[in-house]
């Protein structure tokens, strides 16, 4: 069976750097940090009192009051990003074959705020839950709502693989289209876990930074004094479309999603394999899937979360995969600016990589103050963006559970 080609024809995002794609790119190329003190709840007693929240967000700017109340924040973000992407793609959703149009999103946790609030209010002596508790909280509900909004009646489900969730969604979506089972898929991911349960939960794991006196420099991937990731929220959505379908309707094509890889460390519940074996395999698999060699790659948007172990293992994996070419790569962790969007990270970083490609500009890894000798010496694009022609880019994401997922993006020739 000859596989179809898959291209990106629309993008949308709401994240800590901007509430649309243009604002996001502005933040990325200028090295802006999205971190600030937490506003969503009183975090004054928390070990970590800051996060990368979506800014200037008022649900009723996007939804009527009743709808806003029925959607968890993660669903709101997902719908906003999806609507932007559909609009950007210029798709006439009434004219396409809706049964060959799907939605595959990745969500790491889902409606954590809804879960926390409802469980918090529960009392054994009068056992009641809101009838919206379950449908508002479940991690797949955003998919369902997006399908209703656009009438997409084809494949529809959610991938859950912690911080690799939305990259898994993208790879799955690519495979469906490649096999000829769908023409168009809205893919990407969403997350909104900056709440008591999310912050306190990650704090207990000692996974997140506690640099409360200086939030903007807290996400410092590869820096000697990094002390954990910075939680973020938001969503990213991409319109993935079968190449001929896109050409036929005269769509603007941003990039080809040329392939992907999915592997598992099978090593530890939360820690990465210290030698980056799983990460090595996933990048190799992704390149093979895309029919490209390591030497073809110009840019790697790394997972690079600003944690002790991960920031050492991933560069080791890059050296395993790319050998001598590793030194010629431009690498950056955009999490230094956006923070870590958990399940939505892969979608937002894939968009960042496409924007980098379009603008021939590698976004920086900000907050490098002191070099860490443990971190292999590669070109991490520290502190300032760099002009560079990018023809092929990789975007890596890794999740608790040992999940690794990578996508390969190619400029369309």
């Amino acid at each position, binding site marked *: 069976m000859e596989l179809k080609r898959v291209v990106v024809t629309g993008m949308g995002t709401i994240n800590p750097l901007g509430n649309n794609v243009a604002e996001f790119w502005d933040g990325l190329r200028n090295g802006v940090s999205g971190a600030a003190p937490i506003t969503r709840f009183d975090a004054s007693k928390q070990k970590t009192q800051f996060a990368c929240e979506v800014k200037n967000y008022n649900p009723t700017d996007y939804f*009527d*009051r*009743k*709808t806003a*109340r029925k959607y968890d924040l993660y669903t709101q973000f997902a719908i906003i990003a999806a609507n932007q992407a559909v609009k950007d793609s210029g798709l006439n959703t009434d004219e396409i074959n809706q049964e060959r149009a799907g939605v595959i999103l990745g969500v790491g946790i889902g409606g954590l705020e809804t879960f926390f609030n409802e469980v918090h209010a529960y009392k054994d002596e009068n056992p*009641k839950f*809101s*009838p*919206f508790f379950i*449908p508002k909280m479940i991690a797949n509900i955003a998919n369902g709502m997006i399908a209703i909004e656009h009438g997409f009646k084809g494949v529809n489900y959610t991938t859950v693989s912690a911080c690799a969730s939305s990259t898994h969604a993208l790879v799955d979506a690519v495979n469906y289209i490649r096999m000829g089972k769908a023409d168009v898929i809205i893919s990407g991911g969403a997350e909104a876990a900056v709440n008591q349960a999310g912050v306190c939960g990650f704090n207990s794991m000692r996974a997140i930074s506690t640099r409360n006196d200086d939030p903007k420099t807290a996400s410092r991937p590869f820096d000697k004094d990094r002390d954990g990731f910075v939680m973020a929220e938001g969503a990213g959505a991409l319109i993935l479309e079968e190449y001929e379908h896109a050409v036929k309707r005269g769509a603007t094509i941003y990039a080809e999603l040329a392939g992907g890889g999915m592997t598992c460390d099978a090593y530890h519940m939360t820690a990465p394999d210290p030698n980056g074996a799983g990460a090595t395999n996933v990048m190799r698999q992704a390149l093979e899937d895309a029919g490209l060699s390591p030497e073809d790659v110009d840019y790697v948007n790394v997972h690079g979360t600003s944690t002790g172990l991960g920031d050492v293992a991933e560069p080791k994996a890059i050296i395993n995969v790319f050998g001598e070419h590793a030194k010629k790569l431009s690498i950056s962790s955009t999490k230094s600016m956006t923070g870590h969007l958990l399940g939505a990270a892969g979608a937002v970083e894939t968009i960042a990589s496409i924007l980098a490609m379009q603008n021939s500009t590698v976004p920086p890894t900000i907050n490098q103050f002191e070099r860490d000798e443990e971190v292999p010496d590669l070109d991490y694009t520290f502190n300032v963006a760099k002009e560079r022609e990018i023809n092929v880019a990789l975007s890596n994401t890794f999740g608790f559970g040992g999940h690794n997922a990578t996508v390969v993006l190619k400029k369309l020739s």
Partner: protein
Amino acid sequence: MSDISAKVKAIIVDKLGVDENEVVNEASFTNDLGADSLDTVELIMEFEKEFNIAIPDDQAEKIGTVGEAVAHIDEAVKNA
């Protein structure tokens, strides 16, 4: 308008996101005010909480309009 009636109508306006002019006694939750089955359950729960009463499912099923809700709650509060 009685105190109970005013409170019931305020809850309906809030939960269903409708204009208060639409919340007349004859208005049906599902046919006139755009409520689905989940909205209706949520409304009943809010009435229970606000007026500190219990509305069993078999009685809740008989409450279809604003007026029926007000009448039921009036009665329940009196007997509480």
